[in-house]
């Protein structure tokens, strides 16, 4: 049994008062000697049962009246269907507050989120003027969505069409709170909240609210969805419509509260990421910054401020009072002349970090309606050098000469690559951990490989490594036809059933040339390897001659025929270079050799470019993510042999000049010599400031200490998803069309709340009052009937 004013339920003890009064009266009787006892006893014998019955009924009626009175005052709530006919005992206002990044949309110094908070205050104010009981529950979309995600850590398996099983009491900001005479007292907490930097949906909230409504059938329910009604969420809201249809009923009212007055101009940094190049200390890195215009008019002369934060030059201590603990270098702003509505523009910025470390590049747009998408960062984990393994089939390493020259020319030219040449046997003898140290492996003229070496390479590529395969004279026809057939078959015992190369080889073929044919021997496709060489008026490969190449057996069936794609083709349209994804890594197969009897490409300047790009491309699949969406849990894995378990996490500041909060986190064992520092939104230690920071975009600095006592820093960037900057709104007409079958009211948070009325709601208390009056009348009749009222004196 539930009551709106639970403490008043103690008043039910008052039902004993009539009984106590009766018992006390019996004890307090007066003694009177009586002469006419005979007639009194006769009356008693005659009326004994009737008097007892009336007296029992009288006491029972008084006790029941007392219970009804207390029940009325305490506002009895019940979900019993038996009492459903009595009418709704209370009105439950379920507020779903969209606190996604787009709710930062501001106009006149007031954000859409603040408009939503104002609408909640108005609802509470209207409700308190009503005589019956009003309950208020508030759910923020971000909290529910994060809880739903945490309940199913494998985010890939979350199906939005399936309801979550999040518990309401763990995610509600207010749950079934009775609206007091002063509603501000219960709204203090929610009023102190701010919109997050997340891409949050109201779907999960609707699931939670739906379950609450189903569990309290006797309530009149009003579901308010306070959102900015963007086209991306509400343009074709099939799932939302299904959810709303599921909760709508006679006792449920759906109010769609629009918190934005009109569409505003907005620019969004949709991505900031380094090109697929070698990230090494002292090597210039190009960072791409993409800006999208989500407004209705073209944006001109957009200036993007870019800052490079070098953590290698810092003092080695976190600086919570500064924006970053590293040394901030403002780069020349990037100017974008014009961005048409709905269009994107990408510009690159060159940054150079002289030393290794976890460095940051941050881009920032001028202020506009949505602040959350004006800033984005990426983390560049710069190493001192990138290790490249060259495996040469020739004992003298003659095939590696050109790659060694191109990748590590020496002198002032610094590529950041550390070349290591080995014989094919190394692949057999090295374990998987040893191969993990190489950013990519380049095989040249390998006649055959031991099955163990093949298994190691397969494991290396599947785990994100890059493998380049070149051929040569050291490979016989028998090797092509038989030895390489093992490459085109699944590796026994491997988790990935795909082969190391996607096709069988037929052997070397001479490339014939028709007289007068001016077609270059190499026809490059659009691919990162050739990106700098494409877009020219003439083919950059016009001086490249391919004399011999390895033909592929197109009839072979390896199970991976459709996975590879040509990066470059020959004049005769046969593939020259093939890109083949295997697991998390890539295999790049160059169907020729750098030997002069095969090709003169090493003598062409394009080879150096392509070689460097190839290494950059192949090594990019092992690079850590440079940024992730806001709200993603933070994690730092490290070895217990290198680092101490105590770490500190410095959170982004809530305001531009605010001090950044710090959280002490001890890493836990997750395996042999492996530690993991984990900090998610569901952490128990999360304070309100920390939760707010965690759901905001920015750079999170992990600080740890090496076992030698040196400070170590690892940065994580969290950026607001670009779609949150899309300000295109759905019109009420479109909303009515897309939500057909759902009965709802559409109101504006700024003007539509004040005229909202809660009239027409029946109240169980009125019925209780009626029962009480009837019971008191019956009590009076019983009392009169039992001669408990003094007779009129004649």
């Amino acid at each position, binding site marked *: 049994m539930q009551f709106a004013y639970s403490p008043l339920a103690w008043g039910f003890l008052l039902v004993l008062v009539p009984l106590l009064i009766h018992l006390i009266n019996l004890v307090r009787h*007066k003694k009177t000697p009586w002469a006419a006892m005979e007639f009194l006893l006769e009356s*008693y014998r005659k009326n004994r049962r009737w008097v007892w019955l009336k007296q029992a009924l009288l006491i029972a009626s008084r006790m029941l009246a007392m219970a009804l009175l207390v029940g009325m005052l305490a506002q009895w709530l019940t979900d019993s269907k038996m009492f459903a006919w009595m009418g709704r005992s209370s009105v439950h206002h379920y507020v779903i507050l969209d606190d996604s990044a787009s709710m930062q949309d501001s106009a006149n110094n007031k954000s859409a989120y603040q408009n939503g908070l104002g609408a909640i205050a108005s609802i509470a104010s209207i409700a308190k003027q009503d005589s019956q009981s009003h309950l208020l529950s508030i759910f923020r979309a971000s909290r529910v969505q994060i809880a739903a995600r945490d309940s199913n850590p494998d985010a890939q398996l979350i199906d939005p069409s399936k309801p979550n099983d999040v518990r309401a009491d763990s995610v509600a900001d207010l749950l079934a709170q009775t609206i007091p005479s002063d509603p501000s007292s219960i709204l203090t907490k929610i009023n102190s909240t701010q919109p997050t930097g997340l891409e949050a949906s109201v779907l999960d909230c609707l699931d939670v609210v739906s379950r609450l409504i189903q569990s309290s059938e006797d309530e009149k329910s009003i579901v308010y969805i306070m959102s900015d009604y963007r086209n991306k969420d509400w343009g074709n809201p099939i799932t939302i419509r299904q959810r709303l249809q599921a909760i709508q009923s006679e006792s449920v009212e759906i109010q769609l509260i629009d918190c934005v007055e009109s569409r505003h101009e907005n620019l969004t940094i949709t991505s900031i990421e380094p090109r697929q190049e070698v990230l090494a200390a002292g090597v210039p890195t190009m960072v791409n910054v993409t800006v999208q215009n989500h407004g209705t008019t073209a944006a001109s002369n957009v200036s993007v401020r870019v800052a490079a934060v070098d953590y290698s030059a810092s003092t080695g201590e976190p600086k919570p009072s500064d924006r970053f603990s590293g040394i901030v270098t403002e780069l020349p702003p990037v100017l974008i002349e014009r961005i048409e509505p709905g269009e994107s523009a990408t510009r690159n910025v060159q940054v150079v970090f002289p030393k290794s470390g976890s460095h940051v590049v941050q881009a920032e747009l001028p202020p506009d309606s949505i602040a959350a998408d004006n800033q984005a960062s990426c983390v560049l984990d710069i190493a001192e050098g990138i290790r490249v393994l060259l495996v040469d089939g020739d004992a003298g390493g003659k095939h590696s000469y050109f790659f060694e020259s191109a990748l590590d020319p020496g002198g002032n030219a610094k590529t950041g690559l550390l070349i290591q040449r080995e014989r094919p046997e190394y692949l057999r003898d090295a374990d998987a951990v040893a191969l993990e140290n190489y950013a990519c492996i380049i095989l040249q003229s390998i006649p055959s490989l031991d099955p163990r070496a093949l298994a190691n390479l397969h494991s290396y590529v599947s785990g994100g490594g890059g493998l380049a395969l070149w051929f040569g004279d050291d490979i016989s026809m028998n090797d092509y036809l038989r030895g390489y057939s093992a490459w085109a078959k699944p590796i026994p015992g491997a988790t990935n059933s795909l082969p190391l190369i996607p096709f069988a080889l037929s052997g070397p073929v001479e490339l014939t040339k028709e007289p007068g044919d001016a077609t270059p021997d190499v026809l490059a496709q659009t691919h990162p390897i050739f990106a700098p060489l494409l877009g020219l008026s003439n083919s950059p490969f016009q001086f490249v001659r391919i004399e011999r190449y390895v033909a592929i057996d197109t009839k072979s069936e390896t199970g991976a025929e459709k996975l590879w794609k040509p990066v470059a083709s020959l004049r005769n349209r046969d593939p020259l270079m093939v890109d083949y994804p295997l697991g998390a890594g890539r295999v790049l197969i160059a169907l020729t050799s750098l030997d002069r009897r095969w090709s003169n490409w090493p003598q062409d300047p394009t080879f150096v470019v392509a070689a460097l790009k190839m290494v950059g491309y192949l090594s990019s699949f092992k690079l850590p993510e440079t940024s992730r969406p806001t709200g993603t849990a933070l994690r730092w894995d490290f070895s217990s042999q290198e680092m101490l378990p105590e770490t500190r996490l410095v959170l982004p500041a809530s305001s531009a000049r605010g001090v950044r909060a710090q959280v002490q986190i001890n890493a836990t064992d997750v395996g042999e010599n492996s530690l993991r520092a984990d900090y998610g939104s569901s952490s128990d230690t999360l304070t309100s400031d920390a939760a707010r920071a965690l759901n905001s975009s920015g750079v999170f600095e992990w600080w740890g200490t090496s076992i030698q006592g040196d400070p170590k820093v690892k940065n994580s960037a969290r950026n607001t998803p670009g779609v949150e900057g899309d300000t295109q709104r759905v019109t009420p007409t479109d909303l009515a069309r897309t939500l057909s079958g759902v009965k709802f009211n559409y109101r504006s948070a700024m003007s539509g709340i004040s005229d909202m009325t809660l009239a027409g709601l029946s109240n169980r208390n009125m019925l209780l009052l009626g029962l009480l009056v009837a019971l008191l009348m019956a009590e009076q009749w019983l009392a009169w009937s039992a001669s408990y009222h003094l007779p009129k004196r004649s």
Partner: protein
Amino acid sequence: MPDSKNYLHPEAIRRIASMELRARNVVEGFLSGMHRSPYFGQSVEFVQHRQYVPGDDLRHIDWKVWGRQDRLYVKQYEEDTNLRCTLLVDASASMAYGRGPLSKFDYAATIAACMAYMSLRQQDSVGLTVFDQKIRTKLPWRTSRSHLQTIYKSLEQSPVTDKTDLTKVFREINDTYPKRSLMVIASDFLGSERETLKGLTALRSSGHDILVFHIMDDDELDFPFNDPTRFEGMETIDTLTCNPRALRDGYLESLQKFLDRVRHACASARIDYQLVRTSRPVDAALSAYLSARMAHMRKR
């Protein structure tokens, strides 16, 4: 001139402790209000003249003296005993009840004293019997003035303790007073109803004229109790704890039936019956007595 009616009110009576004074005051007060004096002798032996006072019967004025002296005198004769009056007063425990100025016994004793006073002034012979379940005091008929003091003393000293058993008492009285007389019975008749009515009928059958004063307290007639009360029987060991208002109607109904039966039985036996509340002035009782006495005289 003080209002003579004041002397009839129980409140006034209660203040007079002496039964003699109480009787004199009551009777004199009662008689002074009558237009016709009840005192007139039936004897022919002249005793003296007395100056006329208002209320004296005009037939007794000595007109010859008036003719000689122009003054009004009445002739007084030595009256003869012409009535035997037996006063039967119930002194059972139930007669002790009374929350008003007088208990039922006090009221009955006052009535008896008043009647004795009036009777002896009329030269009637008066006897007194005080009883409960048996006769406690028995005074024979006498006409002397000194007998009045004996009656007063008996009434004042009678205890009210025991049960009522009127059957036995009436049988004994019937045996004790064989001659016909006027029997005045003052009782609440709370006891065996059947035996009581049987005894009354037997007395009447013996030729006695009977005047019954059924003395009842206001509480017994109205039952005005409101609060939870424990009623303890005065002549029995019965007790009852109850809410009086719940039993009031049933009690009054039973009581009324009892009174009706007594009244009906008295009427059937041609017994004069008066239900007297202890809160009422005693003149009702005295008027009833005088009416009964007149009727008795006419019969003689």
